[in-house]
């Protein structure tokens, strides 16, 4: 009986979860592969049917506070797969969800006239949250950046891998951009 309770309990606790199979990028690749890198606040989120009414996408508008790369204007709009219209919700597992008022640093791919999209489905999403103790803005997840050309095992729980303050994160992005330019 305890096991059944445990199993049922874990089902009830299931949060919104993500899933897909990705080819993951190192942070430098995310930086160099994005045409727009922007920090801002989500101003609007609305779902719409695709032209053939086969799937629901969500159009997100971000009020830009700082562009680290690119810069189409005071706001940037991008598309994420999935969304809800009325009683129907389309979930593409792995696609990020956004809510009005959230802050984030976004790495976007924008080619030609099409609406921009997030780099690597969700790999270009770095959420910004307030530190409860200091009130400063922290960026999660922590950055995974190669230190050199050699392979290094990624160590979970590494002491230095913590959410970065927003300014430090921005400096890390700029440094990666500089390294990419230097490599050319």
């Amino acid at each position, binding site marked *: 009986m305890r096991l059944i309770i445990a199993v049922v309990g874990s089902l009830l606790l299931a949060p919104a979860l993500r899933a897909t199979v990705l080819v993951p990028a190192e942070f430098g690749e995310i930086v160099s592969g994005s045409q727009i890198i922007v920090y801002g606040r989500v101003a609007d989120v609305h779902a719409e049917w695709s032209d053939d009414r086969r799937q629901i996408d969500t159009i997100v508008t971000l009020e830009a506070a700082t562009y680290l790369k690119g810069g189409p204007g005071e706001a940037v709009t991008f598309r994420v797969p999935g969304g809800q219209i009325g009683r129907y919700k389309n979930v593409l597992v792995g696609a990020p969800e956004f809510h009005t008022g959230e802050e984030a640093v976004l790495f976007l791919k924008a080619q030609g006239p099409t609406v921009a999209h997030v780099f690597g489905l969700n790999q270009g999403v770095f959420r910004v949250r307030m530190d409860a103790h200091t009130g400063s803005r922290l960026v*999660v997840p922590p950055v995974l950046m190669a230190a050199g050309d050699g392979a290094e095992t990624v160590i979970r729980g590494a002491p230095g891998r913590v959410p970065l303050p927003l300014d430090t994160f921005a400096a890390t992005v700029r440094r990666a951009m500089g390294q990419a330019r230097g490599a050319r």
Partner: protein
Amino acid sequence: MKSRAVLLFTLLLVAATTSTATAYLKLGSRVGTRTITLKWSRMPIRYFVADRGAPSVTAQQMQQTVTRAFSTWNAVSTAVTSSEFAGFTTATPRGGDNATVIGFQSRPELDRTLGATSFLVDTTTGDILESDIFFNTAFPWSVASGGEPNRFDLESIALHEIGHLHGLAHSAIGETELRAGGRRVIAAESVMFPIAFSPANIQFRTLRADDIAGISDLYPAASFTRQTGSVSGTVTKNGAGVLGAHVVAFHLRTGKIVGGFSLSADGSFVIAGLEPGPHILRVEPLDDADIESFLDLTLGVDVDFRVKFHERLVAVPSGGGARRIDIKVLPKGG
């Protein structure tokens, strides 16, 4: 497989800080303030296969591969699942047709995505209306029995996506390495690990203990509750619950690894589907991964704590739960 699992866990034990862990999760989707668990209420799952192939993989080969992958999940003795191939279709795996369609598709906006599963859900009832799986034609695929150089193994990815289709989310049983060209999987003990092995690798055609526990937890056979046990408890830091901590259970005798996450603000966790016997428990932060592949980051996932092993072995009984475990972790800077 056991030796690889033992090696994997030994690496964890040797390193005070480590990157590998386990956990199965169930898929859910937030609707307002509640969460809908994505789970099929009826079996068999009827699926169509798109009648268009991709370079070097025909639609018939896709169908045979997908059928094998479904069969692998259906063969789990402690779970009750079944599937039925309904035929080929001209439809694409895009949704909106009340049919579960699996097939190749070009999705240039989904860069770096080998394949993905989508659901159309009626939020008023929580029913899954349909679920589709697409495989991205931007990548080279193979159905060769031994794999092919520079091509991703379709059966491995299909097995993973069909796990999602059943309602399983990602596992974190895996270890990666980082280099300027990207990240690469070194070892993994779950088909549901979100990062693909390199092309030509066919290791993910076989389910692991974590996958079996997950599918059995979702669709339990009577034997599941009799033959397995569970462990539950809390993870706390400075007296407060830790959300999003990985809790890993390693069977000392069999080497099987199963795990779970603390999924609520009080840090409580439950890991079901454990083989009875002594287990080592370990807690770790998800600080090496794309957290959004596992959990909704807006929930406030905590990654700022050190790896912690529970001081004692945990005896998991058959058909019941071990005594409650409370694990206190320390902040990285503390």
